[in-house]
């Protein structure tokens, strides 16, 4: 039983670390990427993968419990709502006529700063 617990704890900790890593990467992306679309993409990544895996890890730590169900529901909610928000943002901006950034770099930082 204790080995199972140890494995569960390790997996949970790994998931949390992965989540924190994605949050970090997403934040760096929001700060460093050149235009609106890529920044939206970074922010959405950090919500879905980061929050999703942190919540999964916490659910594993919690074990069988009503709180686990809540955590899983939260993860599902984040997985549904965050990409939708990113999609709606990018679509609205594209309809608004913002050109995506391309490599040559003659128009750096063309996003909504």
């Amino acid at each position, binding site marked *: 039983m204790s080995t199972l617990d140890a494995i569960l704890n390790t997996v949970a900790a790994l998931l949390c670390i992965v989540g924190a890593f994605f949050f970090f990467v997403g934040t760096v992306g929001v700060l460093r990427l050149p235009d609106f679309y890529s920044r939206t993409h970074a922010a959405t990544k950090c919500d879905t993968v980061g929050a999703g895996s942190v919540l999964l890890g916490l659910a594993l730590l919690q074990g069988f419990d009503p709180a686990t169900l809540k955590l899983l529901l939260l993860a599902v*909610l984040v997985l*549904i*709502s965050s990409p*939708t928000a990113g*999609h*709606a943002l990018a*679509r*609205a901006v594209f*309809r608004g006529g913002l050109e995506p950034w391309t490599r040559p770099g003659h128009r750096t930082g063309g996003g909504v700063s």
Partner: protein
Amino acid sequence: MKRALTAAFLVLVSLPLLYAMSQLPQHGSATSPAYTHIAPRYLERGPEEAGAENVVTDVILNYRGFDTNGEVTVIFTSLAAVFAVLLAGREGDERSASEPRARTTPEVSPVASFVVRLLSPFVAIFAVYVVMNGHISPGGGFQGGTVFGALLILATVVLGKATAEKLQPARIRGLLQAAAPLTFIAVGVAGLIMFGDYLAFPKAAALAWVRTLWLIVIEIGIGVGGASIISAIFWQMGGDR
């Protein structure tokens, strides 16, 4: 010169204020009257006396119900003020406002529309839960009403104003917006008639269910009123464009 006068005036005003501050019981001190008399009474006897398990609800709606009554009236008045300001500046605007609407309204993304339709029932259930369960757990009319108002705004943005407005039929919209003060006054008058005081809650232990019922009625009133007011302000500000 003016600056020096201002500084002197500020110093002059702040000195008596600082003196008064020094006479107050220390912030957070366990011996201040609020903690030795009022808080224990609320915490120990709140649930049986005021009718709700959640002491915060007891304080807001029962012990200090009069205060909250004025508060919801202020919220309603703010709606009236927003309407007055926005409608005043709108007269010549009507034609130019309706023209670009046809141009700028893009068709809504199917993804966003689907997800909003998928999540709306859950958000609505959560709002109703927060309102109805406010006397047991954290939450209540203000919070639940705000969640529902946010749902209305979301529906307006994604599904269009017409869909969202179906939830508030035009005939009773004014009544819904005034729901919070109206229910409060209704409960207050009911207390006046039945127990002799405005906003009086029955004291007898056998009437505990009446206390709880009245709390729930007020919570629902605040919730409906809050949701209507928030969405009405949003619509009035032209959020449908």
